[in-house]
């Protein structure tokens, strides 16, 4: 058993998006989710730079550099798409109109705090906050997609974030290569475990207490789920 790879994790998250939901996929790994959302799910993708119903990347040579996603890669617009300015794009985010935002993160706390804009280290680069903070505060549901542990093996799901916060108490679910962790008022609950991973293994990789949810699904290597979820 090894943690899911990026594509399998993206497939897992994609499979859980509610039908016909308005969804914003954060810059970085979450952007990959778009590749795995089935057409019949009816998911409508929002991009904070002013696109609703964003489509996949264009064919090579068909790029329009005025039609890019929040990560500044060329995209297309699906039938029924619309363009608008940033003030309306952020009104959608801050005003609670986005059903689900999937964000990357460095740390998530058991209280649902998220830290995803600063490593707290001086990497010689200027800081950047962008629009993730507006999503974290305003979307109806915030999911995080990230590696379960940092490169040094230390937990990224923690009792209290040590990195600068993006927003407090907003995350409801964390998808990692090891588990799906629900953030509940009673603490963290694993609602799915990687095939072959025990609760003990997940707990060992997590910086706050985790218990099993009432029903626990199994995450297969390709990112599909078996059992209830």
């Amino acid at each position, binding site marked *: 058993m090894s943690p899911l790879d990026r594509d399998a994790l993206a497939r897992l998250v994609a499979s859980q998006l509610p039908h*016909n939901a*308005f969804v914003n996929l954060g810059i970085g790994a979450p952007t990959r989710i778009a590749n795995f959302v089935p057409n*019949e799910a*009816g998911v*409508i993708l*929002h991009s904070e730079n002013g696109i*609703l*119903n964003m489509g996949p990347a264009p064919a090579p040579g068909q790029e329009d550099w005025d039609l890019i996603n929040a990560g500044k890669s060329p995209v297309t*617009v*699906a*039938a*029924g*798409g*619309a*363009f*608008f300015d940033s003030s*309306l794009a*952020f*009104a*959608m*985010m*801050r*005003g*609670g*109109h*986005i059903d689900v935002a999937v964000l990357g993160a460095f740390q998530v706390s058991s209280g649902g705090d998220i830290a995803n804009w600063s490593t707290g280290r001086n990497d010689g680069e200027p800081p950047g906050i962008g629009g993730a903070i507006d999503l974290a*505060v*305003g979307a109806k549901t915030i999911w995080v997609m990230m590696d379960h542990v940092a490169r040094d093996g230390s937990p990224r799901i923690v009792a209290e974030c040590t990195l600068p916060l993006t927003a407090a108490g907003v995350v409801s679910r964390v998808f990692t290569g090891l588990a799906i962790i629900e953030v509940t008022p009673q603490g963290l609950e694993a609602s799915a475990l990687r095939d072959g991973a025990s609760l003990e293994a997940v707990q060992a990789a997590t910086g706050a207490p985790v218990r099993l949810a009432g029903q626990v699904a199994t995450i297969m290597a390709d990112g599909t789920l078996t059992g209830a979820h």
Partner: protein
Amino acid sequence: MRNVVVESAAAALAGLRDGHTVMVGGFGGAGMPRGIITAVAELGLRDLTLISNNAGASGDDLSLWFRQGMVRRIICSYPRSAKDFGAQYRAGTVELELVPQGTLVERIRAGGAGLGGFLSPVGVGTVFEQGKQKIAIGGRDYLLELPLRADFTFVKGKVADTLGNLTFNKAARNHCIVMTTAADTVVAEVDRIVEPGELDPESIVTPCIFVDRVFARSPA
């Protein structure tokens, strides 16, 4: 695929009930959803809070609601020349919160955009500053104005697609645009409904994320 088209006024109004707060778009007849207004009147509701620029002028508009005593409170900028509202107002059976038009629009926008309020220079030194916090910024006084939201918004669009994207005819945009952002359930009455992709993405005025139900008064 998302499809917000409803076939009847009853379906368009499902969930609307006594005591709700309702925004109705329109400036004069432009942008006013007459079909929905009539359908709501037939429900005979009570204790509505109405947010609208006007309070009905002719007989077939919001006057219908006032004539039946459906509205307990109205938040409005210009309720003059409104016979039925006027009668209720004089009788003391409806409460009026008079709000300058630009402030009304901006309060609705704040409600839709997730803001806690804004500082406006409008009303400083007038009766409109009563009961409001005054904050000085850069040596100028501003009033703290609070957001408005509603349970339902009703607007009149021109063309909708089945996802809920809307266009409007000429000056019918008026208050409709911000109102679609600030209610739990947004219903658009339109002239015509088309398939996704038939509207130019550059010409869509209200993106479908703000629209929950679309109703063609006279289906094409």
